[in-house]
């Protein structure tokens, strides 16, 4: 199991700004190891964000997203106490889901 994500969701006016920091290697598939062999790509492929159980955004990522990816988006109409859930799946089938409360 991968390390937990850090999710912060804060109300700003009539919406909430959600910032997510995921812990993932995001290996690009371009680098070579000391023996000259290409290190295979290992990256998050699918990201899903839910607001109180309703999917508000999905994303597909390639290996060009940085290591320990950062993601920011605004959820309309989110209030303090609402739940924001973010989950990801990588290309090895590993997955992680974390939840945060809007403050």
């Amino acid at each position: 199991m991968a390390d937990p994500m850090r999710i912060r969701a804060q109300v700003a006016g009539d919406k909430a700004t959600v910032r997510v920091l995921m812990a993932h290697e995001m290996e690009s598939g371009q680098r070579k190891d000391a023996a000259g062999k290409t290190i295979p790509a290992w990256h998050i492929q699918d990201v899903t964000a839910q607001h109180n159980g309703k999917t508000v955004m999905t994303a597909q990522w390639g290996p060009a997203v940085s290591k320990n990816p950062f993601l920011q988006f605004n959820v309309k109409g989110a209030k303090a106490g609402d739940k924001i859930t973010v989950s990801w799946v990588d290309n090895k089938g590993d997955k992680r889901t974390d939840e945060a409360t809007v403050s």
Partner: protein
Amino acid sequence: MPSRREMLSRSAQVATLLAAVGLFPQLAHAQAAPGFNAEAFAAKNMAEVMKALGGSAPVESKDISVTGPDIAENGAVVPIGASTTLPGVKRLLILVEKNPSVLAAMFNVTDAIDANISTRVKMGQSSNVFAMAMMNDGKVLFAQKEVKVTLGGCGG
């Protein structure tokens, strides 16, 4: 009419050929998560990305904005944002022109969030960065910005 024996040997040849050029897609993409558009993420230029996603030819638009640094010291971590004020956005894409695969990230936007997303991408070298919006009515709009990279993030 070819005999059964000839047919069998021919189809075996074709299968070998296909395997040799890697045209057995289910084998090549066996690890992809369901719904992952591996073709779009393997594309080498904007036209190929649009072909893989079924979009029309992209048009530059002032209503789309791409945010990012003018000069990125570290190409491994370049903060890039894509946003638009237009309604009816279906997808936001972030593309880096000179990366080995141009498409970095694709966001399926719903009405419940603003079409305003920021993330961080890797850049191999100085290049144009594109924010692209695929609209519900089929239009594809984009904005571009040049980002200079002093240290690449894709090589060893």
